[in-house]
């Protein structure tokens, strides 16, 4: 891990005073994750460069990670880019070895502390999955001049494309303290990969290090969110463990394009209202929310005091935990608590706990099932659970053309296994209705386009 800071301020060797590190000596320091070395490849009155070189102890690192990452055992955690890329390790090192400069202390040259100096920075390997644009959006508003270079991920396999690592060179007229502070915040925010030190002290650290510059930074929300990465629940880790070693991790809970695409019309609210209206008209005593996810619709159902019994089912234990939080499960008053139940279950299994309900809804669920598992879903719901009424919604693929920024042929969500046209949906619903002796009607949800129909479609089955 390599960071070089140079200045052409005259005399350039003042850099040594500002940092409190003598230019003619190699200085080393032990850190919890390895060693930091500071030395000056160049130290003349015209130009002075200091290098912060980190030797990461890979073994200590993997141990350290095991601790902070609880029992997460992804292979990638052992062979990874941490020893080489600029990350939170670098910022920790900055605060440890350049602490006084970072805090604006300098006995020998106090007048230089706040003085803007001509400074240059080289960071060897900065990872940015957001590409060059993100790096520019983070640094340019602060007045930096940027030079970025990258290379092929592997020259022997040109098909694999460019590497996500950039060699970053920055140039600015800025005080050293401010430069260090900004690096301190922006490096881990850009890295956004595995930020090991998460917890409430981090919030203070962020506010502390970031002066007024962050408050006015146009990317503030993004920087803050990335800097304060959230801890993953243990369940997620168990899920990760179940990845094939050969496959890439799933982005659980990442901001998915679907949400963004549909955001403008708050389609999910419209969808919920539409389904709710159907249920209200029917005057039901018990409702199953199949694939309840984080419990948004459950909450809406629960607010309808005329519905005595509501049950949410989801295959993701983590989502059920989120739903509990959303519903304030632990402090729920007893009457409300008696009305709701959450079940961990999968809709490709027969589940006798789901029998005896007046209605079941599956809002944007079926498209998350592989087409060859739909039959299992049908049996699970229509043959075994057999609710009096079933409401199913799913996207209308025809409408996708009307979304901006959507690549032709792509689906609204990376986990969608299919999306149907209105005709395909109608076919399927007819077939299901006939096979399992239900009556069915189909309707659109959301603003209707004359040619492509509504963004979402809904089928109402009744026994």
């Amino acid at each position, binding site marked *: 891990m390599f960071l070089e800071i140079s200045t052409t301020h005259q005399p350039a060797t003042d850099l040594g005073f500002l940092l409190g590190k003598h230019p003619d000596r190699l200085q080393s320091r032990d850190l919890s994750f390895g060693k930091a070395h500071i030395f000056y490849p*160049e130290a003349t009155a015209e130009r002075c460069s200091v290098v912060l070189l980190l030797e990461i102890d890979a*073994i200590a690192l993997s141990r350290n990670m095991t601790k902070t990452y609880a029992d997460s055992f992804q292979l990638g955690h052992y*062979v990874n880019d941490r020893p080489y890329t600029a990350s939170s390790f670098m910022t920790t090192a900055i605060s440890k070895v350049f602490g006084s400069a970072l805090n604006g202390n300098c006995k020998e040259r106090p007048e230089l502390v706040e003085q803007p100096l001509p400074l240059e920075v080289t960071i060897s390997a900065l990872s940015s999955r957001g590409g060059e644009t993100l790096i520019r959006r983070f640094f340019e508003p602060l007045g930096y001049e940027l030079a970025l270079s990258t290379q092929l991920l592997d020259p022997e396999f040109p098909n694999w494309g460019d*590497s996500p690592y950039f060699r970053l060179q920055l140039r600015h007229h800025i005080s050293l303290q401010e430069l260090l502070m900004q690096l301190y915040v922006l490096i881990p925010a850009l890295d956004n990969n595995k930020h090991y030190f998460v917890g409430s002290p981090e919030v203070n650290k962020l506010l502390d290090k970031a002066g007024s510059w962050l408050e006015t930074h146009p990317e503030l929300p993004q920087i803050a969110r990335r800097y304060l990465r959230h801890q993953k629940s243990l369940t997620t880790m168990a899920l990760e463990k179940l990845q094939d070693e050969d496959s*890439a991790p799933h982005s659980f809970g990442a901001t998915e394009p679907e949400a963004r695409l549909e955001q403008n019309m708050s389609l999910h609210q419209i969808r919920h209202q539409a389904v709710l209206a159907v249920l209200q008209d029917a005057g039901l005593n018990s409702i199953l929310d199949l694939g309840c996810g984080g419990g948004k619709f459950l909450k809406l159902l629960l607010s309808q005091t005329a519905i005595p019994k509501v049950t949410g089912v989801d295959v993701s234990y983590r989502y059920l935990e989120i739903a509990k939080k959303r519903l304030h499960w632990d402090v729920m008053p007893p009457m409300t608590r008696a009305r709701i139940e959450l079940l961990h*279950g999968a809709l490709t*299994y027969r589940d006798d706990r789901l029998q005896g309900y007046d209605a079941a809804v599956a809002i944007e669920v079926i498209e998350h099932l592989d087409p060859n598992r739909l039959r299992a879903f049908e049996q699970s719901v229509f043959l075994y659970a057999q609710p009096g009424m079933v409401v199913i919604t799913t996207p209308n693929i025809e409408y996708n053309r009307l979304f901006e920024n959507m690549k032709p042929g792509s689906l609204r969500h990376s986990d969608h296994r299919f999306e149907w046209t209105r005709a395909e949906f109608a076919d399927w619903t007819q077939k299901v209705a006939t096979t399992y002796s239900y009556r069915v009607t189909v309707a659109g949800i959301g603003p209707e386009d004359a040619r492509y129909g509504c963004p979402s479609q809904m089928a109402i089955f009744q026994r």
Partner: protein
Amino acid sequence: MNKIEIPNLCLVVLMGATSSGKTSFAKKHFKSTEVISSDFCRGIVADDENAMDANADTFDLLHYIVAKRLKRGLLTVVDATNVQAESRKKLIALARQYHVFTIGIALNLPENVLLERNAQRPNRQLGKHVIRQHRRLLKSSFRTLKKEGFRRFYELRSLAEIDAVSVERRKVWSDKTELQGPFDIIGDVHGCFAELQELLRTLGYRITKHRDRQKNFGYTVKPPANRKAIFVGDLVDRGPASNEVLRLVMSMQEAGNALVVCGNHDDKLLRKLQGRNVQIKHGLGATLAQLEQESPEFLEALPVFLKGLISHYVLDGGRLVVAHAGLGADMQGRTSGAVRSFCLYGETTGEVDEFGLPERYNWAKDYRGSATVVYGHTPVPAADWFNNTIDIDTGCVFGGHLTALQYPERELVSVPASEVYAETKRPIKVEQMAVDAADDLPNIEDVIGRRAIQTRLNKLISIREENAIAALEVMSRFAVNPNWLIYLPPTMSPVETASRKDFLEHPAETFAYFQRQGIDEVICQEKHMGSRAVVVLGRDESVIERRFGITGEGFGTIYTRTGRPFFSEKETEQALLARLRQSLDQTGFWEEFATDWVLLDAELMPWSAKAQVLLKDQYAAVGASGELALADSRNALARAQARGIDTGSLLDKATGAQERLAKFRQSYRQYCWEVDTLDQYRLAPFHLLATEGKVHTDRPHRWHMEQIARWSAKDPVLHATNYRVVNLNEPEAVQAATDWWLQLTGNGGEGMVVKPMDFVAYHKGRPIQPALKCRGREYLRIIYGPDYTLPEQLKKLKKRGLSRKRGLAIREFALGVEAMERFVRKDALRKVHECVFGVLALESEPVDPRL
């Protein structure tokens, strides 16, 4: 009265006024855990054995405990006054629910005795009126007990009588667990005497007919050595000679060569003979006509025989149950009217089918017991295993066959009917159970929560609830159709770390391990750096439909070790499978194994085909970032050194790190190549796991290698794995294998897998590791990082614990083999799925993935 006889599983209800000595009586005759007293329960819920306001909770608790015990098949004694019908009602209901008899024992002491004893009670004296009241209630109870549902009732009227009486337990009639067989279990005979004789002779029974028809009911039957016949009932009706069948069977039973359970026709005949008003239908008329010619002696013996037929038998330590119409797990070995009725008639859905007959509910579909159930009653075209149950009524009287199941061999023997004796209203059709079963969804009950799975290899394997939680999501969201998943491979442990300085893993420790486990011969197989692939291949799509219950998903599939589809494009998968199928066709595989499907364990290369994303995001990324950082570091250190700064060993270190990074990149690159055409894939099968009717884990690994080599030679896409057989007692052979490994890994090979020659190997009765991997020095860079060969790092890495990984490997191995065995013997999908799900759940156990 001096003896009370009770079945060893029943509910004993003690009755008697307070102070009548129930507690002492219970203590004298029963184990303390068998007795549940209301005083005890009251104490638990109220801290006070006299708190009468706690009555409701007291009895709630008492009933709860009674229910749990009865459910688990334990004799239970209720020590409470129980003098009111109301208080006995719930107990009788519980006994009924769990199908056990209720036995009443009343301690009815004279009033003066009771009053005297009450007065001596130190902590609880009740008023005289209470005792009088109790006595009155008890007395009036006697009339109604039978009607309430007490099977038997005993009254003890004096202290002397109470002192003298003994309680003796006997086994329930159905309990023949001590009989281990071998048995020949014979299906519904229905008066088909000729066929019965033929079947018995085929089975090796010698039948002698006596002139004297009174002798042994006219027959003497000598069974083959140690064998015993068991009849599943319905000896009579419809057929031409029910009377002769009865004579033969009665003689066998009399001689102790046969057990007979009661069929509904036998029961109806009995009721007719007892003079009850039964409808002369369904062939009863024929039987009665045949009986008209019978001797008075026989007609006298017959009702006794029929009356003695019990509903079902539990045999062979509980592993075998025989009942006429089948029997669910919760009723086996139990005694109640409901049990008897189920055994005779099975269960009907309450609806009537298109032939005007009551629609039968297929109880076997939901059977969850561990005992094998053999039954008849419903004629089927052919007996077939289903869910560990088998219906052996192959409709002899309707022109089908008379079938016997040999136990424990599980072989079927049958003889055809010589004519059609009766027409059936309902055509005998395949119950479609196998198809239904495959079609049926697995039940969530069978996979979630804490589970224990019985396996043949490794006894009981338990699965923790949180592991099942993680597995459920993967199984339902990412795995292939569960019908394909008849096996998941186990994890594989590496060898213990090497004692040699430069190596983390070395063959020496691998061989030493197996030698310690008492293994003489091992097989070393080249380890391919690809991705584990399980291959299911059918001869054509109809095979997959018939045997796996999967339609429209091709004639086979390839899935990963966590059950996910290997290929995202179905076409590539099918094209690759077609190549494999061609080779099998050419070598006569299908005919040789008499199968139309096959299950293989394989490695599929290149690694990059499956692991592209991992390679790019992890391995190539490390290479790319390392190159950038190390180049800058080296350059800056060189500049500093040039201006005279002493940077110590840092420059050398940076140079070394660059070299190791280059080696690291070289390591992973060897396992990557672009696959534009099918010809660039390599499929290397190493286990021929299963074919129809057979799991090949009884074959040594040499056999597997030889079989696979035969058809792999046919196609360059198929890759025969390099291997060597090593006798561990020959130092030269061990040395040669070590050299072979050094050469393999020196050329960039991943390493080798060493297995005991026997697929399933034991040491001192416990299963040992089915395989150990021993990976090459360079290959391990991609596991432990570019710099792992630094001496200080190697030293730290050598401390690694393998016990968890090894424990998992053995359990997963046992589950995987169990899954295949269950599939091959046509267990229900859920039984197979349970094992496969178990492997997946165990895989979610956190273990260092570098091992």
